[in-house]
Structures are given as structure tokens and as C-alpha cells.
């Protein structure tokens, strides 16, 4: 349970009323993420259909889940996005995909599923692309990566991607720096600075018509997104944030922005006065920049991953990281997803 330590650090602040605390606690429980899975230890994933309700509309999603256990992200408790997968540098990933035959699938020719490890530059046999030979009836994926890959990546299905990605078949994949014993380190990249807390944000968008159409339907000729998500949640306002993280003053927080959406998007962090805050861009698509860049806004386009770090102020307070989804033609705004970063 990755964020439990951060949550336990949460001390009630004088400025927040008891009632608000209760509300906040409920939100934290609701937004708890699936536990991270170390794929170096071997994992079996499968696919389940779940329903989610956005704006009063019930929409079917297909999500990856891990076989075994009952926690969030397990197939007993499937979540959107799928479980966070982690791999240490030098370790061998060993991931088995079991494809259920009778559910959560399209008719031929787009039947079955695969896993594509987006950004990890795996060989053709592990690439998960049916058009270049990947099995869609279940597969085993093995690969390892060197220290250049320490950072944020993604995984998703590569069968009829226009539909299967939209259906929710995606999740975060993080390559971790390791010590001599192979233990995970909290470094933003190999040899890069350490962070205290981490936050993985999976960006995605939803066009409900894509969830019912199948095959080479004309529905897939245009995209009209209606719901805009971070980690499967809408976060329509600061009182109903998609994500909440409680950290400490003066600590560093790594935020990995993983673009699995189908629009443009920008990310920024505001303070309570509405002023944009500096943050440092360290990695693009999981590779370190030679010179990290200090920015106040960053673009995350479909398929991109950007890893940033922010050093929190010395006095307790709140910051508001947010993602604004934008149109491909003119970058005008569709919608903003709000989140809350508190530090005590």
C-alpha cells in the first residue's frame, strides 16, 4: 500500500474543521490506489469488466487485474486503471497474461488482449503488438531494463488500440533504481535526486460511444470525450479532488504524469492564491534529461510520460496540482481535473 505512510503522516490541522476532516478521510479511503506489484517477483494479470458511473452515466470498462489476493487491483477487486507495476533495474520482469475467453472482449478480428510495455523498448516478441506476431490469447512477457529506464512508463493493451485503450486497459509502470541488494530506491532517475513521496498520475479520457462500438465502426472515426480522468477519477473540483496526497513541509514529491488520454493536456501546480509554482522536469518517457528543467506548466500529449519533482514550502499549507485536458485543434480547454497536495 504505497501511500499509507503518506496518509499516516496526516495530522489534523487547526484550520480544518472536524467535519472537513471526516470528509477528507472518506475521500482518502475512496482514492486509495491499488498496491504496487513488483513484476521482478513474477505476476499473473487478467482482464475483467467493471462498470463505472460518470455524470449519471454507467459505462463499461475492461481493466487489468492481478490474480491472487483481494486488495484493490486484484481480480477480486478490479480497478481503473490497472495495478501499478514496478520493476527494479537489472531484474527480470516475468508477467503472465491470462485472457478470459468469454468476457470483456471484442468479436474477431479484434478478439483477445495483449500487454504493450510502453516506453520500455522491449524486443518484438515481448512487444504485445498482434500485427507483428503477439498472441492475443494470453502470453508470458519477460524482459529487463538498464538504469537509463529508471522513471515512469506505462502498459496497455495493443489489440485494436483505438477501442481497448479507451476501454481502460492501461496502468502505470515504474522502473525503480536499486541498491546492490536489488532493494528499490526512491530516486527520480539513476543517479538522480531522491524523493520523499511519490504520486503516479494516469491521465485518460472517456468517449462513452467507444465503449459500446466494436470492430471497424464509423464511431471510431471521431472522438468526442465527455469524461476526463486522473487515476480513473474525475476530480471536478477542489472539494471533490481526483487525488489527495498528504506530505510534510520541505519534503520532495515526485509526480509521474502518464499520458493514456486521447487529447492534449497540460499540468501545473497552483498555490492557494492561484499562483503557478515552479517544479522541475527530470524525465521524459522515462529517460533522464541531461539538464533538468524548471517550469511552471508542462504539456503531456497522448503516449508521453513526464516525471517532475516539487520541493514543498517550509511552512504547512496546501498546493493544487491539476491537469487541464485540451483540444487537439487549438489547445482550448475541455475540462480540468483537480487534486490536493497538503503538507504539515
Amino acid at each position: 500500500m504505497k501511500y499509507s505512510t503518506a496518509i499516516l503522516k496526516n495530522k489534523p490541522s487547526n484550520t480544518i474543521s472536524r467535519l472537513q476532516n471526516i470528509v477528507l478521510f472518506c475521500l482518502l479511503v475512496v482514492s486509495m490506489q491499488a498496491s504496487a506489484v513488483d513484476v521482478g517477483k513474477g505476476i499473473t494479470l487478467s482482464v475483467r469488466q467493471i462498470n463505472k458511473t460518470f455524470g449519471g452515466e454507467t459505462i463499461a470498462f475492461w481493466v487489468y487485474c492481478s490474480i491472487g489476493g483481494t486488495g484493490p487491483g486484484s481480480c477480486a477487486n478490479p480497478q481503473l486503471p490497472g495495478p501499478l507495476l514496478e520493476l527494479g533495474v537489472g531484474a527480470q520482469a516475468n508477467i503472465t497474461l491470462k485472457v478470459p475467453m468469454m468476457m470483456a472482449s471484442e468479436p474477431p478480428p479484434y478478439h483477445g488482449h495483449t500487454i504493450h510495455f510502453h516506453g520500455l523498448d522491449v524486443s518484438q516478441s515481448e512487444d504485445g503488438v498482434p500485427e507483428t506476431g503477439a498472441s492475443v490469447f494470453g502470453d508470458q512477457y519477460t524482459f529487463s531494463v538498464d538504469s537509463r529506464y529508471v522513471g515512469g512508463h506505462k502498459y496497455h493493451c495493443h489489440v485494436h488500440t483505438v477501442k481497448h485503450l479507451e476501454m481502460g486497459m492501461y496502468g502505470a509502470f515504474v522502473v525503480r533504481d536499486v541498491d546492490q541488494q536489488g532493494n528499490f530506491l526512491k530516486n527520480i532517475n539513476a543517479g538522480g535526486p531522491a524523493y520523499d513521496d511519490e504520486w503516479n498520475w494516469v491521465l485518460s479520457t472517456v468517449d462513452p460511444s467507444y465503449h459500446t462500438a466494436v470492430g471497424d465502426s464509423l464511431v471510431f472515426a471521431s472522438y468526442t470525450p465527455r469524461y476526463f480522468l486522473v487515476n480513473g477519477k474525475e476530480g471536478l473540483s477542489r472539494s471533490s479532488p481526483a487525488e489527495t496526497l498528504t506530505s510534510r513541509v520541505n519534503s520532495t514529491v515526485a509526480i509521474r504524469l502518464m499520458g493514456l488520454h486521447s487529447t492534449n493536456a497540460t499540468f501545473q501546480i497552483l498555490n492557494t492564491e492561484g499562483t503557478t509554482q515552479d517544479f522541475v522536469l527530470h524525465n521524459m518517457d522515462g529517460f533522464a534529461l541531461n539538464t533538468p528543467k524548471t517550469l511552471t506548466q508542462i504539456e503531456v500529449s497522448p503516449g508521453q510520460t513526464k516525471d517532475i519533482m516539487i520541493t514543498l514550502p517550509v511552512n504547512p499549507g496546501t498546493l493544487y496540482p491539476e491537469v487541464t485536458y485540451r483540444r487537439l485543434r487549438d489547445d482550448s480547454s475541455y475540462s480540468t481535473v483537480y487534486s490536493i497536495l497538503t503538507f504539515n
Partner: protein
Amino acid sequence: MTMEQTNLLQFQRIAIRRATDALRASLLFWPLILLNACTSPLPPPPPLEKDISVTPTTGLVTSENGASTFFTVSLRRQPTDDVSIPIQSTNEAEGRLTKETISFSPDNWSIPQRIAVVGVDDNIADGDIRYTITVLPAVSADNSFNGADATDVILTNIDNESAPQPVTNHVLYITTGVIEISASKISGNGVASLPSWGYSTDPTEAGTSPGPIIDALVGRPLTIRVVNRHNIAHQFDIPGLFTSTQTLLPNESLQVEITPTEAGIYRYGDPDVVNRSLGLFGAIVVRPANGSKTAWNNGPAYSQERNWVIADLDETWNRNAPAVNVSRYNPNYFLINGQNGFSAKEDTATTLKGSVGETILVRIANAGQYDQSLHFHASHFKIISQNGIKVRDIREAPSVTTINVKRASTAMILFPLAQPGIYPVHVHTAQMETGNGVYLNGTATFIIAEE
């Protein structure tokens, strides 16, 4: 089950097959007995290669113009004594090193060292030649490093004896054309053909979209006469090279006289969004004057090049032009060099096909109205230029697998063929992966790398 020195650290799968019996019991437990392992006497394990890291080991390019490159060597842990690593070029006539030994001490071990490799010139049209920098076993009093043999580096030295001299006088006729929606160039649901406008070099031929690629050299004058053979007025510009407010009525022409000063890719076309969407766009490729295979003079070298003109198309605009509602644009075709998905994967001018170890310069011009976020499988690549702004220090070029080529913008990337196989390149954006709803027919092509 056999475990060898080379696979000790790998798990092995033991298959257990189900056996059928006549018992009716629903669940039976049975022991799986692992017998004692028999070992052959083993020498102590050799130092692990991964303690010395060399990156990258493929995809590097030098050139006969003297363009150099570098790789980085680092230790993954502290040695107890000095470690020296001898290095050699397998072909000093193509690439040479500036040092023969890399030395690390227990004090400076954590600082990665950049090792320069310089391209060597000759006067022979000998083509691009592959060579290797051999990283020999390390020498150290620290036994855990002594003998550690890291991966060698494969490079290509680019020949500079065979530069073609491009034509410097061009004529472009603005005329009507037809975009065929068929299996040959563009696939997708819908009508068989769409009216379009395009550029042609021959007044008797239909215009194509994109128009012809015009080759030019830095510092060399270039003239383009643009003749309007269409029935409505047009304009012409080349952002970054040429602007004009002149309106060309039917049968009028204008003369472009320019001398490019910066190598790269430029969009030419009609500045009006409707005219451009109907097909009036193309690209000019400006190469260094010395004919070197470098992205710009003294810039990064490459062994092959591709030019991608990408665009989008709303078929209702093509059917109704010029009477279109500019505020409503719903493109349903996404094109690369005038083709989509399954056609572009066969087109050798588009696919990234070559030998492992090669580096391909891809110049991309987005003439469309939508941003195209292009994702490449197989390898990270370097973004060396965006919208004409070059990354002068190649170390600062970001290594990515996705580049968002924004509407009406250009970019140049260096893509290394780092591993063998066939891999897709595609836009990562929902409907842009389709041709009017038919999957894998958006802006897409293939990486085809042979050993």
C-alpha cells in the same frame, strides 16, 4: 533440470502435467520431491559484466566530415583499487578514439566518463561503413573488477564522397486532384474518391497532396515559380523561409527567390486553412552545403534519412470546398506522405528500414490542423530540432519514445535502429489510429531493423 554458470540467476519453469486416474476423490495432495543437486566443480564466478555500464552500444554515427559522437562508461559500484579499461577501434581508417584507456579510481568511480569517437575522412566513395569500438577486459587489483568485459560499441562512419546536387529551379502548378480512398494509398470506410487540390510539376498532370518534396542546399539560391491553374485565388508561403501577401488569381504566378541559411525541413503551401486542408501543402528539405549526411553543418550525423509530411483530412471539407464551415472540423483521415497505415507500412520512403546500428534522421512536417503525438516502439530516439530551433549540444536533446508534432509545426529526430525486428510507429490518439474508423490506418508506419 540443469543449471549452468551462465543461467544461475534465471528462474526455470518446471511443467507439471495433470494425470488422469480412476479415483473419484476430488482433491489429492501429492509431494513433489526435489532430489539433491549434483554439481560439477566450478571456478569462482567471473566479475559481472553489468558492473561496467556502456551506453549506448548501438546507433552511434560518425562521419567523414569529422563529426564525432560519444558513449558513456560508468561503474555501478565502488572499486577497492584503480580500474583501467582498454578500448580500441576495429577500423582506425573510419573512426578513431581520443584515448586508449579509461581509468576509474576509488575516488572518481561514480562519475561517468564520456568517450569521444571521431569520424575519419578519405577520398573514396566507399559508402557508410560499420565499425566497432572494442571494450577490452578491465585491469584492476580489485579482483571483483579484474577481467570484467563490458559490451562493445557498434558505430557507423558516414561517407561524404557522393553528394547529389539538387535542381535549383522549380515550377509548382496549383491544380485540382483526387484523393483515392482505396487499398493502394489510403484505406478506410467511406467514399471511393474525394476531390482535392494539389501541386504538380507538370501543368498537364493532376496535383498531388502533399506536393513534391523540394531539395535545397544551405547557401545555394533556390527559385520556385508558383502558377495558379486553379479556378479560385490562392496564396503561397514557406514559414521560416518566405512570406508573401500576394494573391494569385487564376492563371497568375509568383516567383519565390530564396537562399536558405539553415538546414532542416520547411512547410510550403497555401496559408489559408481551408486551402491547405484541401491539399495545398508540401515540404522543402534543406541540407548542409557540403553534402554531408549531417542534420546541419557540423550537426549530428546519420546514415539514412526520411521525410514525413503528415496531415489530417475531413472528407466533408473535400466534398463541399470551398464552402466549408471553418469552425466545424472533424478530420477522419490521418496521413503520412499522402498515405495511411497499411499503405505507409509498405512505402520504403516512409518506413524506418535498415540494419541494426544505423541512425535514421527523420524530418517531420505537420501540415494538418490537429496535433499528432507520434509514438515509436523499439527504441528511444533524440529530438534534435523543433520548429527550426535546433538543439546545438546533442547531449541536451531529450531521449523519448513519443513526440507531439503540433499542428503547422516541424521537427527533426534521430532514430537509432537499436534492435532487430518489426515494430510500429503510430499516433497515440484514439481516432487518429484509424482511417475513417478502420483500425491501424491512421498516421502509422513500421520500423524494420535487420541484423
